[in-house]
């Protein structure tokens, strides 16, 4: 089941339905992720992006449909934030080593992502948004994952910051062959790097190559037709959001 052509399927989701109480959050979502792919999921707030991730990592019950994960698949998860209270002393190194099934190669990769040895002994609560993002990514690489799941990984980063972050992601794919599934609201930067973009709004509105999705009417109606070609405006909004968080 988990093979189609030459592609090795890592995650295969069929007709997934998830509901919180009576509220339907995901309806008939079908989606696959193969080795080496970068797939980006975009959608407005409350469109079920994070719920989809929770279904993949198995932290919420699914109503119907199936989520099939390749056996022994190693997942690296990059969350949006850490609930780190100021009362919790935690160095970057200790946090990295909290990762389950870590290995030395993974630790080396994580250190490369950090870009600086000084960071290892820093307290997590003192990091800047960009540093924290690198640390979270590093943590996800500790077990040499086959799939990286990134949940709004560029939240709180400015435009050059997110561009640099996405460049790192591409490098990781090239050097490790790891597949990448990410949630994003930051369309323009993401799109250039992904193989496939999926527009989610409870159900899948449209999907395909970045260019075709950007041109599709469903996409335009979801984000407003002004999105295309008005990069500056879009990013202006984005950076405000970042400061607020």
């Amino acid at each position, binding site marked *: 089941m988990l093979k189609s052509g030459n592609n090795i399927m890592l995650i295969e989701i069929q007709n997934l339905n998830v509901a919180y109480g009576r509220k339907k959050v995901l309806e008939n979502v079908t989606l696959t992720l193969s080795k080496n792919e970068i797939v980006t999921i975009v959608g407005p707030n409350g469109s079920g992006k994070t719920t989809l991730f929770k279904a993949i990592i198995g932290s919420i019950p699914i109503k119907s449909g199936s989520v099939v994960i390749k056996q022994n698949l190693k997942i690296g998860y990059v969350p949006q934030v*850490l609930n780190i209270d100021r009362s919790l002393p935690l160095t970057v190194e200790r946090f990295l080593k909290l990762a*389950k099934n870590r290995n030395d190669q993974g630790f080396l990769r994580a250190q490369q992502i950090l870009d600086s040895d000084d960071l290892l002994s820093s307290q997590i609560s003192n990091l800047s948004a960009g540093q924290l993002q690198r640390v979270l990514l590093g943590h996800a690489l500790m077990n040499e994952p086959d799939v990286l799941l990134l949940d709004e990984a560029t939240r709180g980063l400015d435009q050059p910051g997110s561009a640099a972050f996405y460049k790192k992601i591409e490098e990781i794919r090239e050097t490790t062959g790891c597949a990448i599934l990410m949630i994003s609201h930051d369309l323009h930067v993401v799109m250039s790097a992904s193989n496939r973009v999926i527009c989610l709004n409870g159900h899948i509105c449209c999907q395909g190559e970045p260019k075709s999705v950007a041109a599709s009417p469903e996409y335009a109606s979801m984000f407003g037709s002004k999105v295309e070609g008005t990069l500056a405006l879009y990013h202006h909004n984005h950076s405000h959001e970042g400061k607020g968080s």
Partner: protein
Amino acid sequence: MLDDFMVRAALAGMGVALAAAPLGCFVVWRRMAYFGESTAHAALLGVSLSLMFEFSVFLGAIFVSLLMASLVTLAQGRSLFLDTLLGVAGHTSLATGLVVVSFISGVRIELMAYLIGDILSVSKTDLLLIWIGLVIVSVLLFWRWSALLLCTLNEDLAASSGLNPRRESYALTIGLAIVVAVGIKVVGVLLIISMLIIPAASARSLVSTPEKMAVFASLIGMLSAILGLNASYVFDTPTGPSIVCVASLIFIITLALSFFAEQFSAVVKNKKES
């Protein structure tokens, strides 16, 4: 040696401090102070019920605090006003406990002992229970340490590495119920939460990793127990509150020390730059 009540008191105090301090770190990190306090208040209902039906106070306390903690853990995530719910449940049990006690003749005088503890009357059996509780809590925490830390930082992150955050937080709840139950004899239901959070809070400014914080909190907790016991002997004051007062004093000292250390390092830095 155990025939001396002061020795028994010291061992009981140290046992409770050692069990409470590392667990208290999680209570502080996960902002569960109010949860802990409500659980402790609820334990008084267990105490009164056990006095009424004449079974072990320890069992009564552990049963009611587990029940209370389980109900709250179940409600977690389903209810938006968890804080209010905690206050309602905790104080309802406390009040009911006090009312129940009033029906039993002759226990009214004893009540104070359960509210603020009566460490000087610790029996050998009490001591055994305290140290068994300590062993269980220590093994639980040692075994689940990394998992609990990961769950504290981000539940989805923990779930993605195969952990079950709900189960982990339930383990913490069980630990809390045990500490409350063994702490009743030593500092009482009103003060047990302070043995959890004050040593942890004092240790915070001295350390850079969670593990060191747990170790320092344990040391500070033990020191408070011994100094508090001696102080109550010298000044003839109630022992439980004396232990807590010493712990608070240590907290103030470490806070002041870390404040001055920060100021000092800022001055040194400025001098270097100019």
